């Protein structure tokens, strides 16, 4: 292992010889923790709504007011009839139509019930669903208000008092930042060692190394260690950005974040080396890595939760190391879980780390 030191010196020199790769080490965490959580938010706002008020009473007017002052809705127009409103929906000017029936005030006070119709454009299912929930909430709150004012008890179907645990504001950022960190790590730590290794093959420099007494473990470690150090820097830097920009800090231990990151970085970088060992050109290696990263990212729970996938798909995601790191980091960031609570994530990650590292070393053949 004497040569490892010199191999590492060479790798670090080459890494910082150009300015593009070091720039990536700063740009990727910056974009993923600063920019993306602002854009790719799952909070829905600015929903366009049209109201058809057939009653024109004080009750209906107050409801219209409530909707238009809500932070979720943009009150677009007050329509005379459904055809007019539907026309707006067809044109894409509104996505929600609320129809208040004639005599709502009278019915409310006499019979204790009133009817309203809600039409939702559900081309975008998530937007429609969430908007529907917001509207229901507004109406329920309004009902409560009316009850208190009049002292008249109106039958409410249910009394729902949601209490959101661990993320009371339903803030999207502490949920997404740990996942985005994992994505940034697989992007850099998977691709870069793979491309580095294949470029030695393409340029033929690997031939010169192969005729030296340098061992394969030494050589593979010299390709991985520089990226491991960079990976840890990226984790630290991302957490710093999340704290300074979004005031998102892990509820749990920072040490745990690093512990999981170490195992995860080891796994994805070794995966990159395995891909490189079986590729002859940059193109092959890059396409293979794209395949892995896209499949891993989409089945990791980054976009859609693992628990809402079909059963067979949930089983398949067990093969995906990204699933475990995202789950673990989210638990640490939001719940402040302890190490023992995270063992179901830690053990599979460690297994993947060991398997990929062993394969990376043994799939590298100095001799054909």
């Amino acid at each position, binding site marked *: 292992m*004497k*040569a490892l030191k*010199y*191999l590492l010196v*060479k790798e670090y*020199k*080459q890494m910082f*010889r*150009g300015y593009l790769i070091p720039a990536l080490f700063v740009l990727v965490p910056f974009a993923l923790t600063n920019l993306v959580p602002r854009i790719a938010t799952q909070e829905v706002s600015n929903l366009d709504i049209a109201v058809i008020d057939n009653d024109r009473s004080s009750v209906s007017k107050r409801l219209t007011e409530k909707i238009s002052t809500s932070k979720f809705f943009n009150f677009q127009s007050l329509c005379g009839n459904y055809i007019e409103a539907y026309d707006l929906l067809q044109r894409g000017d509104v996505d929600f139509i609320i129809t208040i029936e004639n005599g709502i005030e009278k019915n409310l006070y006499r019979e204790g019930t009133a009817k309203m119709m809600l039409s939702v454009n559900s081309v975008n299912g998530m937007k429609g669903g969430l908007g529907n929930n917001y509207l229901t909430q507004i109406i329920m709150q309004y009902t409560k208000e009316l009850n208190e004012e009049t002292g008249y008890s109106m039958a409410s179907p249910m009394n729902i008092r949601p209490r959101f645990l661990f993320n009371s504001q339903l803030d999207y950022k502490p949920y997404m930042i740990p996942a985005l960190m994992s994505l940034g790590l697989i992007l850099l730590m998977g691709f870069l060692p793979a491309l580095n290794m294949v470029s030695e093959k393409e*340029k*033929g*420099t690997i*031939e*010169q*190394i*192969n*005729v*030296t*007494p*340098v061992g394969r473990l030494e050589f593979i470690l010299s390709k991985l260690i520089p990226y491991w150090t960079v990976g840890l820097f990226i984790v630290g830097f991302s957490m710093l950005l999340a704290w300074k920009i979004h005031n998102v800090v892990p509820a749990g231990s920072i040490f745990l974040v690093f512990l999981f990151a170490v195992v995860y970085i080891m796994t994805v970088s070794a995966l990159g080396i395995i891909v490189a060992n079986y590729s002859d050109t940059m193109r092959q290696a890059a396409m293979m890595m794209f395949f892995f990263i896209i499949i891993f990212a989409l089945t990791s729970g980054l976009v859609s939760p693992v628990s809402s996938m079909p059963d067979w798909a949930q089983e398949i995601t067990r093969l995906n190391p990204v699933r475990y790191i995202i789950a673990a980091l989210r638990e640490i960031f939001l719940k402040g879980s302890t190490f023992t609570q995270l063992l179901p994530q830690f053990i599979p990650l460690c297994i993947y780390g060991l398997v990929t590292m062993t394969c990376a070393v043994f799939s590298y053949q*100095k*001799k*054909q």
Partner: protein
Amino acid sequence: MNIISVRNLHKTYNKGKTQALKGVDFDVRQGEIFGLIGPDGAGKTTLFRILTTLLLPDSGTAQVDGYDVVKEYKDIRRHIGYMPGRFSLYQDMTVEENLAFFATVFNTTIQENYHLVEDIYKQIEPFKHRRAGKLSGGMKQKLALSCALIHAPHVLFLDEPTTGVDPVSRKEFWEMLQKLKTNFHLSIVVSTPYMDEAMQCDRIALMQGGEFLTIDTPQGIINSYTDTLWTVRSDNMHRLLTDLRKTEGVKTAFAFGESHHITVDASLTFDALRQKLIDLGYQKIQIEEITPSIEDCFMHLQN
């Protein structure tokens, strides 16, 4: 003493479909320059890769510096210098960094073996802070040779070191090799597709289609050429070759640059051939007897 001995070496590619080496036997003596001469696809690089422990042979044995290429490859890697046909140093590192890197991976330093590379490295030392990728072709080659020498190898393997190099640099390169041989008694195995470089070697093997046609000193190969060899020129060289091949008494005829080389029977004389060519309408006919070159010997052995 033999520094390399190879016995009945076979290697195939594509599951046996392509035969790269069909049973090669030879020895390289300590302190000689041994040349592998042959056209592209003769199997030179395959042989090099087996001897440098980068490729496993299908059958046969090979020993380099007393070690077996299959079982004791680790010992071989410590004692050989290899310069692949393609420039394969780190282009994004400087001249000095490359040399220092290759010294350190062999657990040595530039200072320790500087005497070996001094002559060659001195010529590129003014550019030692330049990146290897920015060097001219000739300088790259000198750097590659320095890097292959810096750990004081016992044998140097040079795979087509002069391919794509200008004639002046080629001449310089061979002078460097001769110096290494005389000053340090270094054994060198070199391959080349250029027949004219064969004369620079102590012994050569002519290689074709995965086999050795002959192994001898260059002079020995020329001496064993028994045919009568003539060179023929005329005003219409293209038609001449076809006509020469049809002529009775001409055994072989090949185009060699500006003239055609032919081997003839004892029955054919200068005057008889000249008369035949005049009858066929040729003008400016020149016929001379020449001593064969290595290329002539190669063509002869090939048939």
